[in-house]
């Protein structure tokens, strides 16, 4: 720190202390703003994480590994070989990212028809490994009757309640699945209802069913092949890093075209948009709030400059350059805002931590089940404390302090020294 910076800082601190009352009033609004800012950011992040978690577990995971062609065609011919699972596991291991993966679920997806004596309905048929699927999907928790699939099941089906009713089936009923197999032929498979689920999302309940992966492979002539591998990570922030590392390994070993890791942002674009819109509306609200707080700061700092015009005149007469006068004002404004903003953020963090660290129950504010983007939401939001948000919050407050002090600083810089000395008593 140069001695001039030291002089300016010393003066700034003394001046703030002299105007303690006015400074405190402004500081109070900044403290409240900082607390609200961080609270809404970490609560927003918690909400979004919950959206993402529910959605990716209903769909294909935080990351989905598949052939790039499958994404467009959804056809069995664009499946990947059964060994892919081993490749991916190896890639994860080599990339040192295996620890970030909670669950890896192989799946064979096909669209076909489900028929019974009551008629036929289009169906989204998912061949799954029951042992891993229970810890991946949320579907097993939505059971209404019977049970979810178990390892060792062969001709079992876990069917959405809407589909069950449409086909007039009940537990233990048999029905037939038909779809185009790997060779392009129409093939049929007899299965038996072992359980039924209700997600609350009509499109899902009306069409989705799970069958064992081995059954699906044999029926469709795919052997052990899969259409995708779903990866569930510890949390959504890990996605970019894991994806980058995984993609790099995969293209090293399989060439760029063979396998592709798709993030949830790509596979669930509506959810991605929803998160961005929600963040944006939060930023907008914070922007307006801080705009108002900033006006208060401008007022305080400007008042203190106008009230001390003579003093700034004296300082310049003593040899302070106009730039140094301006920086004195900037430093005062910054100390005021950054100090109170930091206190506000610390306050917001601790209050959120102590009151709602375990989760904030919003169920009293919702009358019935709340679905979002096709996913049923839990009414309890668990805040997410991220360092990045604190850095963001502090930088934002710094910026606000800077912007708010800019005009007063300019006024201090432009002071006409001779003019300030004129009306001496």
């Amino acid at each position: 720190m140069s001695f001039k910076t030291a002089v300016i800082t010393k003066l700034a601190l003394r001046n703030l202390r002299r105007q303690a009352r006015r400074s405190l009033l402004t500081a109070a609004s900044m403290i409240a703003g900082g607390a609200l800012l961080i609270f809404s950011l970490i609560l927003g992040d918690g909400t979004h994480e919950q959206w993402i978690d529910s959605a990716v577990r209903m769909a294909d995971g935080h990351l989905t590994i598949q052939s790039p062609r499958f994404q467009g065609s959804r056809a069995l011919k664009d499946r990947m070989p059964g060994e892919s699972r081993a490749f991916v596991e190896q890639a994860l291991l080599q990339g040192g990212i295996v620890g970030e993966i909670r669950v890896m679920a192989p799946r064979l997806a096909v669209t076909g028809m489900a028929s019974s004596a009551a008629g036929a309905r289009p169906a989204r048929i998912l061949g799954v490994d029951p042992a891993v699927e229970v810890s991946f999907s949320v579907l097993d928790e939505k059971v209404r009757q019977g049970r979810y699939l178990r390892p060792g099941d062969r001709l079992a089906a876990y069917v959405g309640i809407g589909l069950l009713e449409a086909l007039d089936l009940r537990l233990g009923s048999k029905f037939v699945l038909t779809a185009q197999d790997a060779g392009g032929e129409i093939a049929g498979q007899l299965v038996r209802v072992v359980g039924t689920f209700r997600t609350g999302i009509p499109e899902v309940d009306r069409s989705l069913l799970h069958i064992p992966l081995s059954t699906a492979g044999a029926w469709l002539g795919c052997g052990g092949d899969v259409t995708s591998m779903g990866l569930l990570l510890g949390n959504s922030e890990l996605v970019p890093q894991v994806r980058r590392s995984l993609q790099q390994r995969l293209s090293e070993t399989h060439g760029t075209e063979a396998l592709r890791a798709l993030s949830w942002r790509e596979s669930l674009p509506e959810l991605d948009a929803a998160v961005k819109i929600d963040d944006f509306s939060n930023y907008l609200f914070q922007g307006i709030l801080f705009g108002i707080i900033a006006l208060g700061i401008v007022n305080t700092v400007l008042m203190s400059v106008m009230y001390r015009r003579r003093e700034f005149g004296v300082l310049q007469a003593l040899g302070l350059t106009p730039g140094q006068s301006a920086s004195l004002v900037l430093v005062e404004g910054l100390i005021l805002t950054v100090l109170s903003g930091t206190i506000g953020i610390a306050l917001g963090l601790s209050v959120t931590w102590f009151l709602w660290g375990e989760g904030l129950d919003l169920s009293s504010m919702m009358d019935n089940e709340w679905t979002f983007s096709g996913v049923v939401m839990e009414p309890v939001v668990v805040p997410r404390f991220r360092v990045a948000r604190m850095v963001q919050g502090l930088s934002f407050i710094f910026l606000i302090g800077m912007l708010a002090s800019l005009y007063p600083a300019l006024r201090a810089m432009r002071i006409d020294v001779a003019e300030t000395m004129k009306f001496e008593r």
Partner: protein
Amino acid sequence: MGNPALRTEAVWKVFHQEAEEVRAVRGVTLTIQHGEFVVLAGPSGSGKTTLLNLIGGLTRPTDGRVWVDGLELTRMSSRELARIRLEKLGFIFQSYNLLPVLSALENAEFPLLLRGLERGRRERRVRELFQRTGLAGLEHRRPGKLSGGQQQRVAVIRAVVGEPALVLADEPTANLDSAASDILLTVMEELNRDLGTTFLFATHDSRLMERSRRLIHLVDGQIVSDQWQEPRREL
């Protein structure tokens, strides 16, 4: 030291107020040598303050040139002028103008602080001046806790502490009673005599005029007389 402390050459300052032209300073040419103790006298509105501001680089002349210690101010940027004020000039104002958030000592040493002098040397110099001006013991008081005369003496120390080429003092005694004025004048005379500090005053105060060695009369922005005299010693 070949350069005079101050030299002005045909300096003009014309203010434009609404449609009117105010010729506050009209072609003042003046030289002051190092170590002089000069009083600028004249009726109200004669241009004393304006001339001091021109010399201090606080106002830019309409025409003419100004040198302080041989350096021409007229062509300098505002940053360069700030540097000249810091290194070559000292200011004393009518209403003391100490910084209220600093103690007497911090006020007095402020120019040295701005020049980056280390603490030990600053304090030694300032304490010595406090001693010399009868302020010893008041170093840590805030200006608000000092009398007017004491505040003005602190301001004098602040003006001379950096050994400037020239100290400009605009009505330094106008807010003081005669006793306090006397003390202040004595202090400044002693600083002038012992340290060789050059003073240029603007004043209405006849006591100050009597005690100067050189008395310049300004009327309507022009020098009408410039005389050396035997200064009256204090009683």
